[in-house]
């Protein structure tokens, strides 16, 4: 039975809002309801078609009433914030992530009509350390970096999802674990990080980065809503960039900071209202994280259209980031200087 009445949480967020607009313009759905504590951005409201917005807090028991009275059969949980882009207070985010998910899932469990659940999660659940395998598969153990971070919220959240699966085996559950999202329009911790003129990195470490373009992330959530693809799937672009490589591509200045000094730098950035670097993020800069996207391609049936490099190039060009150090002109200069001077040393033939 295809989905008919869809409820999307977190529609004031980047991904949730766009998903609401996409689903709202899909004629196959009878009703598309978006809920959040604040309304979606104006540009989303303008484009959201048949979708409707209900101001509701998923931490409130009222959400169960909405689900049952609207006869919702598909719930898309996009309200979780794994890495808030800017400085955010920890307590409300954790409440939204953990308590909100608990409430929402409890409501789903009690609503007999609900038969599908799509959850947006993060690849940060795998953690990042010197002991981690280079490439994480879906069955790798979940070892968030710290017990307090956003990643551990996601692990808790996935635990509740598994609990729901146990109690309601009839619900089709799709969990998408996204790698860091990037794109010209989205505002994530990654996009803010590379927009800094001087990018702090960890001295002596060069992390491997895997990115997912926001349009791919959106397509995966949309496909999961439209089709039945139960399971847990890693979502990330093909290929890997080294952090230093990405910094060079964006024309930024790399500032290697000794590991011990990094927390103070991140505090500084947070204080300046620039980027909110959590402990998870710092470890990500250290060791990086790459996930295996084989099951996404084979079982889920979606191949990301943007590779990591293309997604990053699209971000750099779409944002019109003006390079602080222009690698191209520097290398052209080098060529101009080095090649003729090398010629002088060559005996003429």
């Amino acid at each position: 039975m295809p989905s008919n009445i869809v409820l999307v949480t977190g529609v004031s967020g980047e991904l949730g809002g766009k998903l609401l607009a996409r689903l709202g313009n899909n004629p196959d759905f009878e009703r598309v309801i978006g809920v959040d504590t604040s309304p979606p951005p104006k540009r989303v409201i303008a484009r959201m078609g048949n979708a409707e917005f209900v101001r509701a807090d998923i931490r409130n028991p009222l959400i169960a009433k909405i689900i049952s009275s609207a006869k919702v059969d598909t719930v898309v949980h996009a309200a979780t914030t794994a890495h808030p882009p800017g400085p955010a207070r920890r307590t409300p985010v954790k409440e939204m992530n953990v308590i909100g998910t608990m409430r929402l899932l409890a409501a789903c469990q009690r609503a007999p009509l609900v038969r599908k659940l799509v959850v947006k999660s993060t690849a940060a659940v795998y953690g990042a350390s010197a002991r981690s395998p280079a490439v994480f598969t879906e069955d790798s153990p979940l070892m968030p970096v710290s017990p307090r971070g956003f990643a551990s919220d996601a692990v808790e959240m996935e635990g509740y999802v598994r609990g729901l699966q146990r109690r309601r085996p009839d619900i089709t559950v799709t969990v998408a674990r996204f790698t860091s999202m990037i794109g010209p329009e989205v505002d994530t911790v990654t996009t803010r990080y590379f927009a800094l003129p001087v990018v702090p990195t960890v001295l002596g470490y060069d992390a491997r980065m895997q990115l997912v373009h926001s349009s791919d992330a959106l397509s995966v959530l949309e496909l999961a809503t439209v089709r039945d693809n139960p399971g847990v799937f890693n979502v990330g672009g093909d290929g890997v960039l080294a952090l230093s490589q990405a910094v060079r591509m964006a024309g930024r200045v790399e500032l290697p900071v000794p590991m011990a000094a990094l927390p103070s730098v991140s505090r500084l950035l947070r204080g300046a209202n620039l980027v909110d670097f959590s402990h998870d993020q710092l470890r990500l800069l250290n060791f990086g994280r790459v996930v295996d996207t084989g099951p996404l391609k084979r079982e889920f049936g979606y191949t990301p259209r943007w590779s990591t490099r293309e997604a990053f190039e699209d971000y750099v060009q779409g944002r019109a980031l003006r390079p602080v150090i222009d690698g191209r002109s520097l290398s052209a200069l080098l060529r101009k200087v080095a090649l003729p001077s090398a010629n002088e040393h060559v005996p003429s033939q």
Partner: protein
Amino acid sequence: MVDRNPVGGPVATRATPVQDTRDEAHEGQSAQVIPLRSAERGGSQRRRHAVDTGHSGEASVVNLSGATDVPGQRASAEPTPAVAESDELVPEAVAKAVEFVRGRLTGEYDVDEFGFDPELTETVLLPALRMLYDKWFRVEVHGAENLPLGGGGLVVGNHSGTIPLDALMTMVAVHDNHPKQRHLRLLGADLVFKLPFVGTLARKTGHTLACHPDAERLLRGGELVGVFPEGYKGVGKPFGARYKLQRFGRGGFISAALRTGVPIIPCAIVGAEETYPKLGDIKPLARLLGLPYFPVTPFFPLLGPLGAVPLPTKWHIEFGEPVRTDLADGDAWDDPMRVLSLTDRVRESMQELLYARLSQRGGVFGD
């Protein structure tokens, strides 16, 4: 022509003569032409931003002089006439270096999912190691024909020498003696990846953590993987125990090979065990520094940093007859008894190789 150059129509047509020269220069080297990054990408219309800022105006000097050994560089470059003229006179090495620096400055190189950077490895790291390999240890390689030509393979070596130089030398030995110049992907301890600089360099040269998922992934991907199953017990063994293989752990590497059906190539490294004769171990200091051991050699820590210079022993690296694993039935990798018996077989053949090579060599420092 055009599909190899998805950057854009006009650039493609202008670049055509360049590519012709390139193709001639690379006749018989087609393997290096294929992996160009631009060829792998589909979606030309998606890269709309890239078109205008493209690579126009950047002469690809190396392409013309035909000096490219470097994979991952771009084919699409439009030579400005000025550089093209001076081009023929430029020494190959300089042109190559300029091209390399250009790639580094603009981030135009490829890194695989393990962080392996073939361009950096071949241009900078391998030449540096080769000096040690050729001049200091004067490594002699035997039995390179036992290395598989293509497809996966697991090279199992004896570990020694306090500092794992033997692993790096084996990497050079495989690269320089294999007809296809394959890279040996080593599996290292987590300590390697925890250390700043060391861990990053290890990743960039294609090494990864010694764990089941990584080993299997590399072997399935058809890579040549190197492993030293003695681990710390081997690299930190006292001088008195030289050339005596230590315990091999649980045989995790064997089950990875069984699971992927790749051959196991035993490897004996002779000479490495005398580079740092470890006489003692200061345990409290090791604990303090978080190291597996703190070695005492005749010169270290007595002479300070000077004592850390390895003794210039003469090395022999021998690759033995491959042990096939694809004949075993499907679930052999799961059977501890069979895994352990195969582990013992590999260990014995390595020990035999070691003794045979030891009896043949003349002296520790010379032939």
